[in-house]
């Protein structure tokens, strides 16, 4: 009995750590591949590390806020187009105000971009909390609305801008660290703090496990849900702002290719569709895994389309791991 129990708990900790092991595995794989094929290192080249870090931070900006929503037992499908809406809103503001005012223009444009995201988050939260719309359907609706709104205000086109300050946000570096990476790290620290060290975080986990437990404790579930969806939208919106800085243009479909990767990163990081599980650290690992796959496959000279296949397979593995974990906990839901 005891032996069986320790065996199960060892297996469980192995399953909990699988994403770390997986990351170590693929890094090892690409390193060996590079050594054999080219005689060079894969991992210890600044360019490679930076490229992976930037790709991971693009995914993370969408995935970090989403992690909180998924821990609470919900989903936010609108984030991909919230990213686009914020990107377009920022670009249009810079165009409208003119880049001459420098940082003042960019600051106002950033604020407007964040505001656009907050509006989407408020609508999502209101739908889920007060109208009891399942988040999958509700945010699928706002996904369409945000996408349409971004295309309408952008006139269906990409809004290009010329602003050195905006460019800095997407391409500059601080002490050698690319600005998008710095922003992603800051957001990760904030989300980690919220989820593990605050009452809000505990309530989020409890909501994911049992709504009754939260209601019984006298916690305002509606307020909690709205806050969660606003955080998710603002996180995705920041992703849009970085996009506009990076490409000196705002596009309505800025977040479209990243949406799936963001969702994947959260699940690879140990979250569960049923809620109550998941961590920010896990999501960071998930995003890095996807970024390594993306960059590694291109580095190996394979057609880039293989990355979709590879990431898809990793998602399936993540779900299988989650299911075996549930079995190990005795099937108690």
């Amino acid at each position, binding site marked *: 009995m005891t032996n069986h129990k320790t065996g199960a708990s060892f297996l469980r900790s192995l399953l909990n750590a699988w994403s770390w092991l997986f990351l170590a595995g693929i890094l090892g794989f690409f390193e060996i591949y590079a050594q054999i094929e080219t005689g060079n290192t894969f991992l210890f080249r600044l360019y490679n590390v930076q490229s992976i870090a930037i790709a991971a931070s693009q995914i993370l900006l969408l995935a970090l806020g989403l992690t909180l929503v998924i821990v609470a037992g919900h989903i936010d499908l609108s984030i991909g187009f919230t990213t686009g809406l914020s990107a377009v809103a920022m670009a249009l503001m810079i165009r409208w105000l003119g880049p001459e005012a420098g940082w003042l223009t960019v600051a106002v444009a950033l604020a407007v971009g964040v505001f656009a995201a907050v509006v989407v988050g408020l609508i999502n939260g209101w739908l889920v909390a007060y109208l009891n719309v399942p988040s999958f359907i509700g945010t699928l609706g706002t996904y369409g609305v945000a996408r349409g709104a971004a295309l309408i205000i952008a006139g269906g086109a990409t809004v290009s801008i010329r602003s050195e300050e905006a460019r800095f946000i997407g391409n500059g570096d601080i002490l050698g660290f690319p600005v998008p990476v710095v922003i992603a790290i800051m957001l990760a620290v904030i989300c980690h703090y919220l989820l593990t060290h605050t009452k809000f975080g*505990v309530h989020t986990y*409890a909501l994911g496990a049992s709504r009754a437990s939260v209601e019984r404790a006298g916690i305002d579930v509606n307020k909690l849900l709205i806050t969660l969806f606003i955080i998710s939208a603002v996180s995705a919106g920041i992703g849009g702002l970085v996009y506009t800085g990076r490409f000196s243009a705002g596009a309505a479909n800025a977040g479209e290719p990243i949406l799936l990767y963001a969702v994947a990163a959260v699940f690879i990081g140990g979250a569960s569709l049923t809620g109550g599980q998941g961590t920010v650290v896990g999501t960071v690992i998930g995003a890095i895994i996807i970024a390594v796959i993306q960059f590694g496959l291109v580095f190996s000279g394979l057609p880039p389309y293989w990355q979709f296949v590879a990431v898809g397979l990793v998602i399936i593995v993540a779900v299988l791991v989650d299911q075996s974990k549930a079995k190990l906990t005795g099937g108690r839901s």
Partner: protein
Amino acid sequence: MSPLLEVKGLKKRFGGNEAVSDVNFVVNAGECVVLAGDNGAGKSTVIKMISGVLPPTAGNVYFNGELLTGRSPEGVRNTGIETIYQDLSLADNLDPGLNLYLGREKVKRIFGLPFLDRTTMRNDAAKVMKSLGIEVPDPSAPVRDLSGGQRQAIAIARAIHWQAKLVIMDEPTAALGVPEQREVMALIEQLKEKGVGIILISHNLPDIFAAADRIIVLARGVVGGERRPADTNDEEIVRLMMGATVSDT
């Protein structure tokens, strides 16, 4: 001594259906009153009217002589009445400490920022559980790793920690195995020793006789009878539970 809880002429009508017609009883401190009755007898409706979830159509509930009727569920809980539902309302993914404090978490400040004080909450939970005679092997493990009896103990610990004077328990042993049922019965004794009044809802005869100081049998929304366990037997309780149902139809 005036009673802890007094239920006077409680009545609840849902549309044309009178679920509870005229229910009167009292609960004293340190006493376990079992509300027995078949399904549909009105037990749950009575409980919901006490805990503030449902407003009664007529009648009043007094707690320590104070009118309770009309308060919100939270208002009722703040006066010292804790209701433990069958599902226990635990967050399975959190440790006992966080479940104990859920909604009233302890926080310490580091550089002005609030941080959860998990250690204190865990220790407090372990202390209360220990006072109930239950040792939690790993206080940082989520409560889904605990046995059914231990989980019930956390729900009861919550009531003790927040100094409930009356605990309402809805079929606490329904989903448990025999050894765990015994654990829960022992917990109920502990609560009584601490002077807590208990209303236990049950239709399980062994439980009823093991826990009750008084048995109040509900049938068809009225009190069909009130007995002390020493003055009655299984047969009579079953007859009271069925009695009104049979004669009415």
